[in-house]
């Protein structure tokens, strides 16, 4: 799997992501600066990593979403290329119009930095095939604005089309207000676009891929992508 990680000023999780991708896919990802206008040839996966692009000025992800490289990402996604946005990357994809909705300030107003539990809603997608449907995984979050909101009609479509792939839940997999760490609509932690090739999620699977991290639950996401691409090849 040849992956490309976008780098914007203020991003700070790109090296965690690169380490995880190298570890699981065996290939060193390309780091692509935001001012570039094209992606490396043969890119299998574009990753928009977490951090605080442009200091979260204006709105989280708003300025990065208008960077030159994003036109290339838009073309790449339109052709069915896989795109993964994590944390600030999710915010950037929403601001770029590649995903519907918006990430608002956490309902509790606090920056939340801890492990959370996610329920994997289905396993038949490139982004979840490393897991079983209904499986509960533990991954970290670190965000102040992860409260996913969209209008009623959009939420209905997301649910109806099975586009919510990850949901905040209790360790037992129960989705309720208690497990919903930031007040997100329908406890949404991660969604895909209509075509199913662009995933945005607030939690950081790349930070739970090695035993030294205390947990390896995040591996499945990357291993699933590798398996998906191997099968397609």
């Amino acid at each position: 799997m040849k992956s490309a990680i976008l780098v914007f000023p203020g991003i700070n999780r790109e090296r965690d992501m690169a380490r995880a991708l190298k570890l699981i896919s065996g290939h060193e990802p390309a780091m692509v600066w935001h001012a570039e206008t094209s992606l490396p040839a043969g890119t299998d996966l574009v990753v928009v990593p977490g951090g605080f692009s442009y200091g979260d000025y204006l709105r989280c992800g708003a300025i990065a979403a208008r960077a030159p490289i994003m036109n290339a990402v838009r073309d790449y996604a339109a052709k069915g290329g896989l795109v993964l946005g994590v944390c600030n990357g999710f915010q950037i994809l929403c601001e770029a119009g590649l995903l519907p909705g918006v990430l608002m300030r956490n309902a509790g107003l606090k920056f939340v930095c801890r492990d959370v539990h996610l329920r994997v809603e289905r396993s038949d997608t490139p982004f979840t095939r490393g897991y079983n449907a209904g499986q509960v995984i533990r991954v970290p979050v670190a965000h102040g604005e992860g409260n996913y909101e969209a209008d009623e009609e959009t939420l209905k479509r997301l649910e109806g089309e099975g586009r919510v792939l990850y949901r905040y839940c209790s360790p037992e997999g129960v989705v309720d207000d208690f497990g919903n760490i930031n007040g997100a609509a329908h406890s949404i932690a991660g969604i895909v676009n209509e075509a199913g090739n662009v995933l945005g999620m607030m939690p950081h699977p790349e930070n739970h891929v090695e035993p030294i991290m205390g947990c390896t639950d995040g591996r499945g996401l990357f291993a699933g992508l590798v398996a998906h691409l191997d099968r397609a090849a």
Partner: protein
Amino acid sequence: MKARVTVTLKSGILDPQGKAIEGALKSLGVDGVASVRQGKVFDIELAGADRAKAEAALKEAADKLLANTVIENYRVELL
């Protein structure tokens, strides 16, 4: 030419920051505050004197960047 773009949250969108400010005003004893919604103001200087062109440019700026029209409304004023 000077202009001002005001961006506000659409009604029905939860505004936790506004709520916190509302609570702070109440605890300061400021009388009669029913609710607070937080927004943004952009003061912009434009080159040229064509008002119609300026208005179009400001609308473009608001649609493309200054506002996220999923959750926000904006108002353009030429001053």
